[in-house]
């Protein structure tokens, strides 16, 4: 179907278009320069805002830990039920929504590409099965590789090439997209009831430090030439005083940055930006981190904003989840994924009147407002750790309006309010900057060439919001902004209208993006013959894993709609 979106105010930061009135033409699921209009369906977007479809770089939406979260939280579903409609399926929602509802809700908000950032490689098959059941949006998933024994062993022995081969094999085997590192070294240490104290605390039995893991994998990432940088959840996450570790983490890979491309992405940075030495005197380290990021080009961040609500925290960071359980006394799950990683889940309620929670809320916004370049920080809540993704419109309104921030500031813990930097920050995001932090920047960081922009050749993933940027002053009328961004007037995915005025009208399947590195190791068809896989991998599978080597690899035909990205390895 051909489509023309007429007279909308277009925000396309990757092509430098800032609110110009333009027509967008779509043919065969792609954006084109222009064509014969008479057989095209016309969408009149006059008085509306047109942006590329939203891209979410970090959102836990599928996999065994999300599913365990669903199991753990029946009360979370009880009051948020979506009944079946003609074309949509029933489901439940809130902080750990069912797969179908996840797809519908993202589409209704104008999002069309989401990344599931933590997949234990062992659970990859399950993750892909859930992703397949998450309709409409395109997906990518990042395997957790920071504590994989092979990585630790090879890096310990200085075998970067072998490490790269194994990582490339693993990314291909799990149909992953990028290298995710969670609390490097800490998860392996957690197997012995401890956590690593800082970047130079060695991991038991391996004798390798988190710094070496991060540097090693960063180098591996460059060798394999993955489109995204390493995606790092820092050490000491959620501990007061951890902002120093975060800055050290960013700094330890600075020398790898040879080009303009960032080499490290610090995810949900808010949780890694605490100052102080205890919960009583914990305060914001956002200023220091923002200063570092403003002076360096090799790093990107995402917010991990907290919203005051009841949510479910889930991460591969087992020791941190244990700490959260001790703090909250709530029900919890902790899990050790053999040879690879760990995970944990704790339901959590962020309260306005809690000093720590209110400070965390403030830190997230401070980071977003103090980092000058919106291309370096992206809007996330680390769904569902900081808040469910359905709160994004609220965060957009906080970023766009000082008045909205002040209104919330009035309601929070008074000690936190007194220490917050927010009253001193006057910056308000423009629509152009919002388009950057919610789509263009994230697509650029992910290295997705056809996403996040509206230039010719891009995928026709478009969000149209019913808000007139020339008439509405977002600073004053932040509620209108919130309303508009929570219900896209139109969401177009692959050239088809999928959602219109908060109603799903079509349910296509989304693609799974994965990276297919061209390694000598993988020259032969990797599924049918593993002849080139070193025999020690096969042997170690037998020794360490509960899964047989031959059952581990996910063949491409297992994905419903596969979108491999072939990359050339810089060997």
């Amino acid at each position, binding site marked *: 179907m051909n489509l023309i979106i007429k007279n909308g105010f277009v925000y396309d930061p990757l092509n430098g278009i800032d609110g110009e009135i333009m027509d967008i033409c779509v043919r065969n699921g792609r954006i084109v320069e222009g064509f014969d209009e008479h057989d095209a369906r016309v969408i009149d977007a006059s008085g509306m805002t047109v942006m590329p479809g939203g891209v979410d770089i970090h959102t836990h939406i599928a996999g065994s830990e999300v599913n365990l979260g669903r199991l*753990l939280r*029946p*009360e*979370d579903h*009880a009051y948020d039920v979506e*009944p079946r409609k003609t074309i949509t399926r029933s489901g439940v929602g809130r902080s750990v929504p069912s797969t179908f509802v996840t797809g519908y809700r993202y589409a209704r908000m104008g999002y069309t590409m989401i990344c599931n950032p933590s997949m234990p490689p062992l659970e990859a098959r399950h993750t892909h099965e859930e992703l397949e059941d998450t309709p409409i949006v395109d997906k990518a998933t990042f395997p957790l590789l920071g504590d994989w024994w092979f990585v630790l062993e090879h890096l310990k022995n200085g075998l970067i090439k072998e490490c790269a081969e194994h990582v490339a094999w693993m990314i291909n085997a799990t149909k992953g997209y990028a290298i995710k590192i969670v609390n490097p070294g800490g998860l392996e240490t957690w197997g012995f009831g401890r956590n690593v104290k800082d970047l130079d605390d060695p991991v038991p039995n391996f004798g390798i430090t988190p710094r070496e893991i991060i540097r090693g994998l960063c180098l591996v990432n460059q060798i394999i030439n993955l489109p995204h940088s390493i995606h790092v959840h820092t050490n000491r996450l959620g501990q007061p005083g951890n902002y120093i570790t975060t800055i050290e983490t960013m700094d330890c890979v600075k020398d790898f940055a040879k080009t303009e491309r960032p080499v490290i992405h610090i995810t949900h940075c808010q949780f890694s930006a605490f100052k102080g030495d205890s919960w009583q005197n914990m305060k914001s380290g956002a200023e220091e981190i923002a200063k570092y990021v403003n002076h360096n080009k090799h790093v990107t961040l995402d917010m991990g904003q907290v919203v005051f609500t009841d949510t479910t925290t889930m991460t591969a960071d087992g020791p941190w989840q244990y700490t959260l359980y001790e703090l909250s006394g*709530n029900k919890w799950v902790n899990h050790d994924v053999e040879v690879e990683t760990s995970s944990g889940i704790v339901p959590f309620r962020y309260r306005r009147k809690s000093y720590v929670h209110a400070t965390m809320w403030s830190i997230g916004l401070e980071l977003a407002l103090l980092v000058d370049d919106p291309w370096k920080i992206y809007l996330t809540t680390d769904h569902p750790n900081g808040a469910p993704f359905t709160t994004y419109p609220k965060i957009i309104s906080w970023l766009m309006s000082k008045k909205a921030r002040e209104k919330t500031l009035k309601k929070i813990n008074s000690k936190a309010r007194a220490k917050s930097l927010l009253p001193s920050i006057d910056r308000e995001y423009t629509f152009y900057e919002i388009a950057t932090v919610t789509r263009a920047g994230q697509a650029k960081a992910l290295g997705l060439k056809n996403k996040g922009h509206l230039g010719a050749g891009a995928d026709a993933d478009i969000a149209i919001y019913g808000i007139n940027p020339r008439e509405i002053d977002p600073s004053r009328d932040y509620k209108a902004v919130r309303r508009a961004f929570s219900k896209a007037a139109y969401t177009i995915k692959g050239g088809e209208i999928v959602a219109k005025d908060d109603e799903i009208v079509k349910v296509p399947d989304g693609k799974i993006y994965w990276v297919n590195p061209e390694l000598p190791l993988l020259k032969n068809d990797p599924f049918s013959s593993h002849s080139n896989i070193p025999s020690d991998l096969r042997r170690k599978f037998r020794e360490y894993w509960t899964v047989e080597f031959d059952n581990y690899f996910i063949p491409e035909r297992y994905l419903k709609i596969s979108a491999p990205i072939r990359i050339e390895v810089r060997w």
Partner: protein
Amino acid sequence: MIFHILPKYQFRVPVYADCISPDVFDGKRLDEILKLRVWEGNKNRPLSDLFSVKCEENAENEGLTISLRGDFSKVRRVGVGMSKGKIIVNGDVGMHLGEKMKGGEITVNGNADSWAGGGMEGGRIEIKGSAGDFIGAPSRGSIEGMKNGIIIVHGDAGREVGCSMRGGLIKIYGSVKHFVGISMREGTIFVRGDCAGKAGAEMFNGRIIICGYVPSILPTFTVDSIRPNVDVNGEKIPGPFYRFLGDMADNGEGKLFISKSKNPHLSVYEKYLL
């Protein structure tokens, strides 16, 4: 104003009628009320398809009253979240009666099903017959139990009465099954009849008074003293009672009062009282 509601036929599948609540009815005309939506199984239908509603002016009654007559045992979530007015049920009523209610009054001249008064925050529920399981308890998985208000059951009640309770009063004049007051944080549960066992498991605080027979006390409770009587909401309940403290497995400070005369087998605990 009194609204009389009668079912039009015998329901075969559960009906979710959140809208039968004085807060929803208030300020609406009869034709608007008839258009309110209810779920019958997986079908969303107007109230008028399932129930006949009559409206009657009553000068004596100041507040809004909803009177239900007939078999409502399949009708769930009646009076959810209500904060004022009155609901009178002449017959049986289904699950989740008065869940999360904040005020007002519900009287059931019949039996109520499970989760009556689940997580209620105020008001009063009186059930003249028996009640199901999870009286005053929050929905599965949640720890936000009953916070305030009064629930009175004249007959028996099922398992887990007052689960995760955080305040208020539950009175059961009949007997209860297992796990009365499980995970209780605050508040009072009074049982005039027997308890099937495991009373007060995981309780952190609050009081449970059982006047009837209890087969055994959980090993995580310690005997504290013998009390001649107990005060429940101003009413003096004559004893004597054994007073136990627990649940020690959760460092709890809950108080469990068990009738001495009905439980001679518990006299073994007396040797620990010095």
